């Protein structure tokens, strides 16, 4: 009933039908599986072929196609003049909401010329379709792996021991079994949850925990080699971790990721990325604090290199000092760059976001928080996840060198720990009370106290009051009883996430977010109990929430793209120096909020410079270059270029500014009067 009501409330904005007939229809009242999404994309492009185009970038091990849909007024053009925006979603596969958000964006762009104009939009709705399917197939379990067969336990078989839905409830949860070697206990205050016994607190383990299933290959391990393969979301190059169970053999070892490499590097117009998944760079700027391989101000030169360079290897050097030395020892004409030297010395990569970039991230985070207030989505919720090593967002920031944003759209609402009532009666306060003080509390307070300590229901306030009055009971005695009494269930025991999911499950999921522990007769483990948190319910919100969440948050991207650098020629001045010699000065302006390029982009050199060309008939260049280079222009900043030219006759020169990602501009000026 409630959900029906919700749908009808939201149906006006969210049951979106296209304005033009014959176009695919999509609504945001359910999650779409990868097949439905791909069909939607194919149909969409068919009926909108002048403004959209489909790129198949990979076939997955599970035989799903990964598509990028291109939307904009310049689709199909080879040398686009507007910046490209790459929006990716759901590399983890289990972030179904992220895919819906990308579909919502696609829909907005197709519907509105105003929204799509000025940019080329490249949108990848499902980065990991193999894993994304898991949400649509029973039993439900959280596994980010694609379908590449991986021999997880390195035995003589592959994918031979996956999970089983033993209790038939459609969800894979946990089996707990009493075992002399068990290390887990149920949390004293919250019997639903399990924790590791802490011997320091005098706790002793009771249970062993297993994921739900049987030991298919009889090796004594349970579900240790299921069908899940490589986690696509960890397969990108920046800080890629080799030799992990799920990260893949090397960065780009997975078709999904390698396909994206090829796509990105063949679309040089991409000026910004936005990833929909489990991190949120709009809210929390990229995090630093990683230990860097080398301090660039104190470089230690290996002994052999030191000998070759003729320097003392006991002390350290700055890059500048090293460059001076190197320049003197290489043969003439051999140009040495810092990057060549850095690689000779093995100095390694930048691992923390650069300060200058954090400035714009922090400002944008302020804007975003205000935005969330406006759309009333600023309630307290669990933090988004931190960006993991080997993730898309780190690759985009560090290797692509362009503004990189991400959104997570939803996490569980935070459950505030109940503040302790300072006036509440405890065993300690009770112990020190006199009979009179106790009686002075009054019936109401005493009753409240009894219920708060989980006293048996038949014990009422009157019973205690009479007891004290009759002298058979004292507050001190009561404190003694209290200490021996079972502690009440404490809903705040457990991790914040556990508390949040149980609360959310009770309030919004009709209890379906948690499977109550129930006994099960296991073929090899004997009597076990199966239960626990339903794994996807803490990641994927109920479908009734999709529409509200995406329609309110996705449009923030239109604010963001408005902040991108925009390079224009703001002014040109010609000064006549006499004798046919003219000084030409052009001011090149970045009208955007964001710098061109980012500090990281400057460092990695991937985003080319702004190229300023000067062309004109009958002019001779006395100073300056026909192709001048401006390496960077800060946000809302200006740079200039100068030339000295000689011309006999009045002429016109054309000055052009060109960038890969921040548009182009040109202007003509007369030199020596009108021609």
């Amino acid at each position, binding site marked *: 009933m409630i959900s029906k009501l919700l749908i009808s409330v939201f149906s006006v904005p969210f049951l979106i039908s296209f304005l033009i007939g014959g176009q695919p229809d999509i609504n945001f009242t359910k999650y779409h599986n990868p097949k439905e999404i791909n069909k939607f994309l194919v149909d969409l492009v068919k009926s909108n072929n002048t403004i959209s185009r489909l790129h198949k970038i990979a076939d997955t091990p599970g035989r799903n196609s990964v598509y990028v849909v291109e939307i904009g007024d310049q689709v199909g053009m080879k040398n686009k003049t507007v910046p490209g925006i790459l929006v990716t979603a759901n590399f983890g596969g289990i972030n179904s909401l992220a895919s819906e958000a990308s579909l919502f964006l696609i829909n907005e762009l197709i519907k509105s010329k105003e929204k799509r104009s000025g940019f080329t939009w490249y949108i990848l709705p499902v980065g990991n379709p193999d894993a994304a399917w898991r949400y649509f197939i029973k039993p439900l379990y959280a596994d980010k792996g694609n379908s590449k067969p991986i021999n997880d336990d390195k035995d003589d078989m592959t994918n031979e021991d996956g999970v089983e839905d033993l209790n038939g409830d459609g969800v894979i949860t946990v089996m707990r079994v009493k075992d002399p070697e068990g290390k887990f206990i149920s949390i004293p205050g919250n019997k639903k949850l399990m924790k590791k016994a802490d011997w320091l607190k005098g706790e002793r383990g009771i249970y062993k925990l297993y994921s739900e299933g049987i030991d298919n290959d009889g090796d004594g391990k349970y579900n240790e080699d299921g069908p899940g393969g490589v986690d696509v979301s960890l397969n990108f*190059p920046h800080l890629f971790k*080799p030799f992990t169970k799920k990260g893949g053999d*090397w*960065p780009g070892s997975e078709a999904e990721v390698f396909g994206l490499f090829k796509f990105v590097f063949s679309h040089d117009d991409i000026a910004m990325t936005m990833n929909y998944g489990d991190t949120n760079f709009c809210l929390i700027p990229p995090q630093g604090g990683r230990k860097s391989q080398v301090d660039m101000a104190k470089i230690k030169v290996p002994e052999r290199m030191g000998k070759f360079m003729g320097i003392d290897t006991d002390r350290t050097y700055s890059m500048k000092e090293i460059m001076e030395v190197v320049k003197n020892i290489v043969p003439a*004409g051999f140009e040495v760059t810092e*990057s060549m030297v*850095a*690689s000779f010395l*093995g100095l390694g990569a930048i691992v923390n976001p650069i300060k200058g970039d954090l400035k714009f991230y922090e400002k944008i985070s302020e804007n975003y928080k205000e935005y969330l207030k406006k759309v009333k989505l600023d309630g307290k919720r669990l933090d988004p996840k931190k960006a993991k090593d080997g993730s898309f967002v780190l690759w985009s920031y560090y290797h692509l060198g362009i503004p990189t944003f991400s959104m997570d759209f939803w996490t569980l609402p935070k459950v505030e720990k109940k503040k302790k009532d300072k006036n509440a009666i405890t065993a300690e306060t009770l112990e020190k009370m006199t009979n009179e003080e106790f009686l002075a509390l009054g019936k109401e307070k005493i009753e409240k106290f009894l219920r708060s300590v989980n006293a048996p229901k038949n014990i009422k306030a009157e019973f205690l009051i009479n007891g004290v009055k009759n002298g058979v009971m004292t507050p001190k005695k009561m404190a003694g009883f209290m200490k021996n009494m079972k502690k009440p269930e404490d809903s705040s025991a457990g991790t914040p996430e556990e508390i949040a999911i149980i609360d959310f499950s009770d309030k919004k999921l009709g209890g379906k977010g948690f499977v109550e522990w129930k006994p099960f007769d296991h073929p090899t483990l004997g009597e076990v109990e199966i239960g626990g948190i339903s794994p996807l319910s803490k990641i994927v919100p109920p479908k009734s929430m999709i529409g509200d969440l995406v329609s309110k948050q996705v449009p923030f991207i239109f604010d963001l793209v408005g902040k991108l650098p925009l390079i224009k020629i703001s002014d040109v001045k010609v000064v006549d120096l006499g004798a046919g010699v003219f000084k030409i000065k052009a001011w090149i302006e970045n009208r955007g909020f964001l710098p061109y390029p980012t500090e990281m982009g400057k460092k990695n050199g991937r985003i080319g410079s702004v*190229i300023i060309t000067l062309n004109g008939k009958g002019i001779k260049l006395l100073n300056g270059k026909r192709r001048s280079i401006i390496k960077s222009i800060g946000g809302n900043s200006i740079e200039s270029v100068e030339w000295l030219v000689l011309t006999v006759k009045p002429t016109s020169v054309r000055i052009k500014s060109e960038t890969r990602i921040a548009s182009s501009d040109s202007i003509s000026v007369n030199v020596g009067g009108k021609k």
Partner: protein
Amino acid sequence: MKRNLIIGLILIFSITLTGGEKFSPDKVTIPLSFDYYYSYEMVVTAVKKLNKAFPELSRLDVVGQSDEGRNIYALTINNPKTGKELDKPGIYVDGNIHGNEIQATEVTLYLANYLLTNYGINDQITSLVDRKCFYIVPIVNPDGRYHFLKDGGTASSNRGLRRPKDDDGDGLFDEDFPDDLDGDGNICVMRKKDPDGDFKTHPDDPRLMVRVKKGKKGEWKILGSEGIDNDGDGKINEDAEGFVDPNRNWGFDWAPDYVQSGAGDYPFSGVGLKAISEYVVNRPNICMTWLFHNTGGMFLRGPSTKSQGVYPKGDVEVYDFLGNQAERMVPGYRYLISWKDLYSTYGDFGEWMSMTQGTYNFVGELYMSSQETFSTIKETEKKKRALSEDDEGGGGFFGDKRLEHERLRFDDHLNQGDSYIEWKAFKHPVYGDIEIGGWAKLSTRLSPPFMLKDLVHRNASAIIFSAKHTPEVSLEILKPVKIGKGLYRVRTVLSNTKAIPTMSFHSKLKKLYPEDTLKVSGKSTRVVAGGTLIDKYTDKVLYKEYKPEVQFLTVPGFSKVEHQFLISGKGEVKFHYSSRHGGKLLKTIKLK
């Protein structure tokens, strides 16, 4: 389409160019000769002819195409009569990943030629070819070799992949190559008479120059490599081909271009390299790998960066065994650790091989220009003293200037001047009257052809030695001992008589792939218990709790592994040993 057309035209053009005498593919005959360097087309002809001449021992595959669409070939040497390829230890050998390092190809061709032409003649080679499988990729970078030999260049040009890159950041790609101004096929050095120059003529040899002391008058200004300012930006030769370094583009410990120039946009952006990686991954029997380069006279092993730490002790022992032997076989070459003794590299092929594929890998840096000697015994001794003790030879990264005199005289008298281009006057559009001269393209990093045969034979011998030391495992089933009613104790011994273990210590540590298996099966028998025998005298066994009939193990080099099984029942019992690198074995016994 247009690109294919251009490549097609280039190919046709090149055939007509090389159609003449020396570089004609028709000149390639079996057995191959190693008197001079083969062009790309000649190498292709050579592998095709080898394959044709030895069809029962070899197979020719096209691994993939290069960035410009040239085929990358692999020649497999295996005797199918003695077993399938994947059931034998595999040795992978390649060369010429850097387009200019061409003699590396000759080493691989020599190895193929030597193994095939000596099969059935030399007992050791016959036995080796019967027991091992060789995968030989003579040219990893065919575009590089093609352009190196065809275009004007230096000994270091055309090294990378043909993937355009904007080296000077002006928005244009590969727009200012060096130019072979005098049309002699070499990019040499340009110099101009200029009293403000930093150099003067060397007092002992007018071909050489020395730096003048600060404040002293100079004679020559060195203007850099031969060329003009093609794009009019005031710089000469600043944006030539590429540069993606094919030996920095592999997927292990890859770092982007700003960390190390030449990395490429992402791991395996080079299409040919990706094809080769897949070729290797599909041959899990490969356990020993050799990748040839020039120059410096080195056998390098990883790690290639310091941050990788150190290799496991067991692996270091194997490397030392093979590396020291290689040093003995190729005089003057040094066995070194790549990051420590040379420099750090990220994303190189060798480290990818050993770290992700679990092979033992050597990079062979062929040739040292210091081998170009022209001295009496006395002079040699004097020279040795003069080159200070701490100098490790090899000529440094740019050739040891102190040896240049001697190299010139070596060239004059042993090479009849082929390696050095005398200074000649030239009218340069910007600099005016200049001189062009210096070391020729086919010099410095490349041995003169007369020394080639010695180089290829010695290095191929180092490969052969390592191939002989790939695992050779035998399985022995000791006589069953009856220990109860219908219960037998059966002991097995797996022995490896060679240096290389059946799985590298690194692979085992990082769990790259499953260990070898020893499986016991029988129709009417059951393995009650089984495990590794720790001490055969005290009967100490590490029994495996579950599935005792399947044991996981590695047989280390020069070593053995023993197992003990308690088997109940009667009749035939089969013992299957299966290993990626140690082959497959089957033994059967009968319990009575």
